[in-house]
């Protein structure tokens, strides 16, 4: 599959919770190898969309297509094994397992799964190094990690499933500026290793620097799509963010 081809397509996805419409007819495409940003104010449906893509929620309307094949409503574990990995906004680690074992879980059950536990452990250790997870903390219980460590572990665990597409839900949330720079580098590194990345973010400066293209959600509907510079000047987007000015990358 060539670079630039459509990797994941969201088609008219609608999701309701009781009377509340969380997603309204959302459509966009994620191209092979690109780093797409998904932004929007709180409650605009970003996480809901990820939950629909990964099969946690079944949409009330619309389809999700992976490489042209429909994956709507499949069980989450099947979607994971088809090559879609994700992280959670608030890390949902297996808190009573060690950091290493958390990654091993991804390796054993993800797309690149193998029966050999020893090999999977080695793979997990490599991934922890890849995300710069401190070596000394590998055998620590996941419930006792710092936020930064947890975020890195989330990424390593998602990568352990060998995803073609990584859906990263606010990987920078709650981090300090130094940590943000570190995390941004990490995400670039992941993209550069050949993965398609969808990143949900709240930290605007970072996303504007990082993403090649941006989709904006507001109240469950897509209000804009385009390059960071266009988005920054889009009136609807500015309005949605209650007038908050979004800065385009200065370079």
């Amino acid at each position, binding site marked *: 599959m060539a670079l630039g081809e459509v990797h994941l397509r969201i088609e008219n996805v609608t999701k309701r919770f009781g009377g509340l419409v969380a997603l309204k007819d959302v459509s966009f495409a994620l191209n092979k190898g690109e780093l797409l940003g998904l932004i929007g104010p709180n409650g605009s449906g970003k996480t809901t969309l990820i939950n629909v893509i990964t*099969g946690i929620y079944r949409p009330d309307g619309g389809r999700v297509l992976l490489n042209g094949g429909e994956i709507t409503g499949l069980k989450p574990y099947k*979607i*994971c094994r088809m090559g879609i*990995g994700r992280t*959670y906004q608030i890390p*949902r680690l*297996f*808190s009573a397992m060690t950091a290493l074992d958390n990654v091993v*879980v991804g390796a054993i059950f993800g797309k690149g799964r193998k029966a050999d536990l020893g090999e999977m452990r080695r793979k997990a250790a490599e991934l922890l190094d890849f995300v710069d997870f401190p070596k000394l903390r590998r055998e620590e219980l996941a419930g006792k990690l710092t936020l930064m460590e947890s975020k890195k572990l989330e990424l390593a665990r998602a990568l352990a*499933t060998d995803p073609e597409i990584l859906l990263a839900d606010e990987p920078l949330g709650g981090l300090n500026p130094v940590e943000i720079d570190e995390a941004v580098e990490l995400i670039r590194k992941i993209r550069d290793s050949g993965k398609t990345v969808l990143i949900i973010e709240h930290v605007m400066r970072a996303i504007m620097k990082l993403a090649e293209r941006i989709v904006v959600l507001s109240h469950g509907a897509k209000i804009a799509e385009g390059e960071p510079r266009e988005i920054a000047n889009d009136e609807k987007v500015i309005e949605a963010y209650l007038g908050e000015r979004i800065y385009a990358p200065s370079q």
Partner: protein
Amino acid sequence: MPKLGLAVGREGAMKRSLMLIALALTLFLIPPIVEKGYYINLLAIIFMYTALAQSWNIISGYSGYWSFGHYMFFGIGAYAVGILVTKLSFDAYLASVLGGLASFLAAVFLGLILLRIKGPYFAISSLVMAEILKVIAINEEWLTGGGNGLILPPRYALREFYYAILLTLLAVTAIAYAIKRSSMGYALFAIRDDETAAETYGINSTKYKILAFAISAFFAGVAGGCFAWFVTYIDPYSAFDSTLALMMIVSAVFGGIGTVMGPIIGGFVFTLLMEVLWVSFPYVYLIILGASLILVMRFIPDGIVERLVQIVQLMGKVGIKIPARI
């Protein structure tokens, strides 16, 4: 907190398995050496409770689905043996294994319904399911003898019971150990910590939960089956006895849930403790049982094994040399 099995080096594992084999052999040699039926009987009952606690551990300790109705599988096993032996004149040992299989199949089927339900809802639903089975046993008189129960051919086979139940205990422990060290162990522990997250990392949670439930049920069924031909009389109220679930939970919690050694140590210590309490204070042992249950949960909620590990580590820090981690 217990770490997953692989953290231990191969050498430690070797030493440990040799020790366990030696222990198992000793247990096998007890009946010929010890003449007194009482001790053999006591040990056999301790093994039974321990095996039940270990089987409970496989589903509840590993995957976090606290089954309050696990005694249903004991009952299914007991009734399967009762029916096979009295109505179809099966051999008791073969019947025990078939009793385990009956429990296994029942668990697969019931698991499809029950394991969709979570937390306290699951705990109570499993209890209710066990009670439903009890009602069925009461009513289907043509099959189960109803309230009259089933009377198996009289034979008093204490030593056979001892060996059968010891084998069950060893097998369930070996399986619990194997599961913990395999990918299934990772799946179950992940489900225990966060089932939704586990699913998104590729774990087919339904499959693993049902498998764990069924394996666990198999051994509870075998234990129930052995018990049936040992006491030679079962009725709905003794075969589906909810205090059995209490014994399983308490033993496992006492030793430490989710660990392999926990239910064993818990089962031994707890059952022995009960025996001593009850011999010494026949009238108040239940009061003490209730109180000790509270105290254990209050002061050692993560079990004795965890504390032992901490003590061993502490000894290491103070400079006392100890062999590889137990």
